[in-house]
């Protein structure tokens, strides 16, 4: 199963990932990305991969995608 990874140090709080898939991503009070789930079922793979790639700071990666 593809695994979702986030680099909190790289996150700049754009929230592009939240807009694209708010069932997998959120932004905490400090303005940093929070993963709501790291295991991505095949059915969500394409959508979550697109959300990860939407990050302007390249802080997100879907491994095994």
């Amino acid at each position: 199963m593809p695994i979702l990874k986030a680099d909190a140090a790289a996150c700049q709080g754009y929230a592009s990932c939240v807009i694209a898939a708010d069932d997998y991503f959120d932004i905490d009070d400090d303005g940093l990305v929070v993963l709501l789930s790291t295991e991505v079922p095949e059915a969500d793979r394409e959508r979550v991969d697109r959300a990860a790639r939407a990050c302007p700071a390249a802080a997100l990666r879907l491994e095994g995608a």
Partner: protein
Amino acid sequence: MFDPSDVVDHVRNGMLPAHIYNDSEIFAAERDAIFSRSWVFLAHESEIPQVGDYVVRRVMENSFIVSRAGDGAVHAMFNMCLHRGMQVCRAEQGNASHFRCPYHGWSYRNDGRIVGLPFHREAYGGETGFSKRGQRLLPAPAMDTVNGMIFVSLDPEAPPLREFLGDFAFYLDYYTRQSPSGVEVLGPQRWRVKANWKIGAENFAGDMYHTPQTHASVVEIGLFREPKAEKRKDGATYWATSGGGTTYKLPPGTLEERLRYVGYPDEMVERMKGAWSAEQLDLIGRDGFMVSAASVFPNLSLVHNWPKVADSDDVLPFVSLRQWQPISENETEVLSWFLVDKEAPEEFKALSYKAYLMCFGSSGMFEQDDVENWVSLTATAAGTMARRLLLNGRMGMLPDGSTIAPALGGDEWAGPGESRIGYGEYNQRHLMNRWADLIEAGPARTAAVTVGTPGEDAAR
């Protein structure tokens, strides 16, 4: 400098300075005094049925996103990014979980809460520099709904919507609650006319007098099964708190016969009997009046009519809602919706829509008749001669202020408010007196809203 006393005294006397229909100073006063205070219609709930659905509408220049958030609640938010003021939503309608400002990328949930603020730490020093917690797009200062109609007011001190509408709510049900399920809407058609916004609002409020003249050709081609325009003087006009309208007198018959006469099928008649109060039913069944056009102050109008839709003698009723959105002193954007009872049979909905399109909307025959007058009137009102002329808007009123037609008694008119049979400009005067009161009161005072800082004092 604009002095409201130059116009309000005349208006209250039923005399209308012609220039108020094309005057930039008057228009500025209307923006500050009328549209900053009044309840203004924005959208109907059936336009945003699903979570994430939104429409973008305006009150004057003020753009609002009307959206249905994740919890199903409706929000009306000022469509301006808290940072540099860009519109965060540039589409007219759609479905979105979030809105992202195209300028610097700030983003907001569809309930208005801020989500993304790029480089919050580096650029602002985090929460210390810009307190992001709890920030949201400015909500409309006041928002409320009636029969699924979403209204906002820019005045946080506005009285509750129900109180503002007052007794007009009785009449609103004929248009927007023909069954417990209420209406669904189609539209809006949206177009601009080079006419002042008040003209349409006044016309729909009570101008039965123009029908035989302006709309003569519509009757001549047989759009109605009877010379309906000639019968307008048999109808009554009514005014109730913040709105009023016109009616037609129906031929003798029972409640059921009279509703069937204007084209409602039996199953819809049965639902009306379940949805309306005894008084609402009596106005039709006992008193024989059927609502037609109406206006709610300042710029919302309704219309109910029953033209022929085919070669047969059958008529079919339709209901439409419209807003006279002011663009300038000589231009108005008309937003026109088709309304139909949610529980109506599909065939009725389709034919009723056809009847609406034939009469009103950008292709409607009544529309084109009316607008030719209003555009011409507006253009002429810009001139210096118009500054001298006080138009006579006193129809139905004698020099001592008494009225020609007596107010109908409770045994003749089951509804609330004040009603009279025949031609008269009672309603236009009610509408314009309200206008004069607000123009005289002047601009509404409002407090500034600061964003992201603890407040002005701390900033100093």
